[in-house]
Every structure is written in C-alpha cells, then in structure tokens.
C-alpha cells in the first residue's frame, strides 16, 4: 500500500469557490477514517483471496491494480482531512511570548518558520502544553537579560525561533534560542545528584541533555512562576511518548539551544514492519529499527551467571537481547536458538537492544487502533495494527520493552 502524505493544507485566504472552508465534526471524520480503513482491508482481502491464487485472470489483475491505487488515494485524501496547519499552535505561543517578555523584562524577538506545515489535528491539540514549557524554559533560562547579552557581544534582543518542517512521514518542530546554551557542569552535577549518572561517568552531550527531560529535574537556582519547578519538561516527555514522538537537544555554550521534536504526521496510519514470533504477530514502527541481522554462532553469548541473559556481538559491541517470550506472559515456552532467528536491533534511550523473532514478514502502512477495555493491560504496546491481510498485530513500543514497564 503506497502511501505518501502530502503536507498541503487548504487555506482560507483564497477566495475561489473551491476553497470554501467547511466545519465538520471530528466524529464524522473519525467515522470516515474507520470506513476507509475497512475498505482498504476488504479490497486487499478480495484481491488476495486464496481462491484466485492459481487462476490466470488478466482483466481482473488490471482492474484489481486500479482499484488498489484508488483505495490508496482515498486513504491519503481521508488522512489529509484531519491535517491542520501548525500555525494555530504557533499563534497561541506567540501570545505567550509577549507575556513572557513582560514577566522577564527581556527583549525577545520571535521568528516563526513553516507555519503552513500540516499535522494531525489530534497531534496539534496535544502539542501546545509541551511546547509552552520548552518556550518558557528558553525564555527564562536560555535567553540572557539585555545587559548580559551586550556584555557578551550579542545584540540586546534575544531571538526565539519556532520552526516546523516535514520530512517524510514526520514533522520536525524546533524551538531555537540564541541564549547562553546549556551549562554542562551544572546539568551533570544535578544529573549525578539525581542518580541518573554515576559520580565518575562522563556522558556525551546528547545523552546528558536528555536528562533535563527527566521528572523532577531542574537546575534553576530559584523557582520562578515561569519555570524551574522541574515539572514542565516531564510533560513534554509524557506527551511525546503518547504521540510516538522523539526529542533531540543540541546546545552550544554561549550560542544557544535547539530543542527538536520529531512527531509522526498522522496518528492513524503507521509505516511499519510486521514480525512473527511463534503464533504471535507484532508490528514495529519502521523508524525504530536500526538494523536487521541473522547472527552466526560466534556472535552470541549466553551468561548463566546473569540469569541466562543473552548478548549479541555486533559491530564491535555487545547488545543485550530482549526475548519477547520472556517479556510477555502467555507466549510459547520453548525458545529457538538465536542463530535460528532473525534479530532486530532497536535504538532506545537506554542504548540498543536486540529482539529476536522467527520471521520478518512485510513492510506495510498499517491502520492503528488504540488499546481498549481488556486490552489496556498489554505492556510495551502502542495499540493494534490492522494488516492488509485482515489480521491483527500488536504494535511494540521498544522503549518500554527495555525498561520493563511493570503492569
């Protein structure tokens, strides 16, 4: 199912009759999305019916191909319905920045880039709170007071940039300030104090910066009404988890800090790889996979002294193995040898992990369904994926796979 999401959003500025905007309830759009999902599954079921397998149906094949193309376009068109420009979220932040100027007494110039970038309305609605915290932090801690800036040879006015761009099926939102940058010494000391790193550990910058998103983390010496209570960034973490997003921070002393949020354009469809382990089907977002490998006998290590933990030797490093059969309850008891399985390497915030499965089946654009009722107890899962075959696969959250996630 080819599926490319275009980022075009109709604008009210054009006066042409075709651009008249309609107000439609999100329930109606949700229903349409559900139906389109069902339609695409039914079409795929029909076309791939086993009864047709060995028949020579030239006319049918051509018609079936055309039908699939149309369904795929309908799917694209339906998902576009729920896309809105990020402009509205940015506008609310703009008001906030004006307020921050008054409260902090700093001169802030706000620059907005790519406000036409389209994003799922459901994502947009949840984006304001976490963005607000990042902006507050930038204004409060990042940007210096005018005198300090002048002394450092910078312009008196600090610049805060909000930018949104689309790359593939992801939207990248950046909050860039040209302030003093993150203080490595201060953050490392605080991170050690909070037990995030050992007293002699020297994490690299990218790893260290992520510590500021841990709950209860604040290096601000005084708690102001603006920030410094160490709760804001945690909101960011929680929301990004729920939106299947990623956070990256770069910072340069004296030059400023950039916080980048990578978020999938749509929550309804997911570009993923389908895996089989025993009788269970799993599905993982394609962006989570670093590598797929079939280890040889010399590449694996069994550690009896470590409760039978297994490691994989790959590219000059040991990668811990996480067996789905051990993590989840109710899967098969016997586990094939690592050498008889295919291992997927996932990058998590705790480093890479290897997850062995029996088979990597397919790459697919799947329809996502959230967990409900009796299924909410499933651990390390985003929800269910409806596959083109009509089957259902559980979508794995690799991050929670590694931290254990007690139910």
């Amino acid at each position, binding site marked *: 199912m080819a599926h490319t999401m275009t980022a075009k959003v109709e604008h009210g500025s054009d006066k042409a009759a075709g651009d008249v905007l309609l107000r439609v309830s999100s329930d109606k759009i949700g229903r349409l999305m*559900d*139906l389109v*999902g*069902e339609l695409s*599954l039914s079409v795929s079921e029909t076309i791939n019916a086993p009864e047709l397998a060995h028949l020579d149906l030239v006319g049918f094949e051509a018609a079936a191909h055309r039908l699939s193309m149309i369904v795929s376009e309908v799917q694209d068109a339906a998902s576009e319905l729920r896309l809105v420009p990020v402009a509205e979220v940015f506008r609310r932040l703009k008001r906030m920045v004006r307020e921050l100027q008054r409260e902090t007494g700093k001169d802030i110039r706000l620059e907005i880039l790519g406000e036409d970038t389209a994003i799922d309305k459901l994502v947009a609605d949840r984006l304001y709170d976490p963005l607000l915290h990042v902006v507050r932090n930038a204004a409060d801690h990042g940007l210096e007071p005018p005198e300090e800036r002048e002394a450092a040879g910078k312009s008196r006015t600090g610049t805060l940039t909000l930018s949104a761009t689309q790359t593939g099926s992801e939207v990248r939102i950046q909050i860039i300030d040209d302030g003093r940058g993150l203080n490595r010494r201060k953050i490392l000391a605080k991170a050690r104090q909070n037990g995030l790193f050992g007293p002699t550990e020297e994490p690299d910058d990218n790893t260290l910066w992520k510590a500021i998103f841990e709950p209860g983390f604040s290096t601000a010496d005084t708690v102001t009404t603006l920030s410094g209570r160490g709760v804001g960034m945690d909101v960011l973490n929680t929301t990004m988890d729920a939106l299947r997003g990623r956070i990256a921070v770069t910072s340069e002393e004296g030059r400023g800090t950039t916080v980048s949020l990578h978020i999938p354009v749509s929550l309804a469809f997911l570009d993923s790889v389908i895996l089989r382990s025993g*009788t*269970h*089907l799993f599905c993982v977002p394609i962006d989570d996979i670093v590598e797929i490998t079939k280890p040889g006998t010399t590449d694996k290590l069994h550690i009896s002294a470590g*409760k*039978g*933990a297994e490691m994989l030797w790959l590219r000059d490093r040991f990668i*811990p193995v*996480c*067996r*789905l059969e*051990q*993590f*989840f*309850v*109710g*899967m098969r008891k016997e586990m094939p040898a690592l050498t008889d399985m295919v291992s997927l390497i996932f990058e998590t915030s*705790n480093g890479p*992990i290897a997850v062995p499965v029996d088979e990597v089946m397919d790459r697919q654009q799947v*329809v996502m*369904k959230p967990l*409900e*009722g*009796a*299924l909410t*107890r*499933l*651990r390390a899962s985003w929800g*269910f994926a*409806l596959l083109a075959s*009509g*089957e*259902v*696969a*559980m979508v794995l959250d690799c991050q929670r*796979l*590694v*931290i*254990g*996630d*007690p*139910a």
Partner: protein
Amino acid sequence: MTQLSNTDHPQAMPGLQAELSEPIDTMYLTFPVGTELYGVSITVVTEIVGLQRIMSVPDVPHYIKGVINLRGKVIPLMDVRLRFGIPEKEYDDRTVVIVLQVNDAPVGLIVDGVNEVLDIPDDHIDRAHSFSNSEGRSLVKGLGRMDERVAILLDVSRLVEDEEIDIVDIPAARA
C-alpha cells in the same frame, strides 16, 4: 462470516422481533454452556457473529483467547468456559461470538451457541446472595425463572474485570 445482527436477520433473535415495542431492559439473550443456561441483558449486546480467525495476544488472562478484526474494530474474545473454570470445548459450527459493549469497550464472548431472547421481569429474578465469594464479588447477577426454565443471569462488568490474574507474578523483563 455469519453476521446475525437483529436488523439483518431478525429471526436470530425471535423474542426481540415479537416484542420490539416493549422496553428492552428486562430482556436477556440466553445461551447454553454445557448443560447450564446463561443470560446477558440485551442492552449490552451489539451483535452476534460467527467465529473467525483469532489472533493470539500476550499479557492477557488465559480465558482471553486473542483478538479478532471485526470490520476494522479490534475485539478481544473471552472463552466463557475458561472464564467459568470449566473444561474447554472444541469450537464447531454452532460456536458463535456474542459481541458486548461493556464500560465503553467491546468484548466478544465465545459461546457454544445462542438460544432465544427471554423477557424476564425483575420480580422473576432471584438475586444471588450465595454466589459471592468472600469479597462479595460474583459473576452472577441473579437467577431468572421463566416457566420451567432457569437462566443464570450474568453481571457483565464483573465478567470483564479480571481479578484472578495476579499481574505481580509477571516475570520482570530481562533486557
């Protein structure tokens, strides 16, 4: 997939067809489990479908056999025999799934078959005091008497609560 919702196939729920004008609060869809007759309030029944391919799911109680994709909805299926603690029976042509909407979430009950819809007024129901365990929780809401028959009426929200499974026993993940 046989799909017996009351609009498509009214004959599937004979009681319902005859008494559509009556309030449905006192109506129960009855189904046999072994030699016993059970009933669920039809206010929570959304449809009855034939059994289709079940996809197994980890991390759920043993009586949840997996999930099905019912026209784009992911529905967990509960084998009521396992839920009641009686031996499993191999599924056959008569095996059907009663789809319920309980606490805003769908759940399907795998049952040996379905019987008719019975109108059982409240004064024909013996409230079950004696079925509760020590904590006062029971799957049984009461016993409905209609003529010579007795239907065991289920408390569906209790049915989907899974108090027996002790999640603490789940072995810690070893990364």
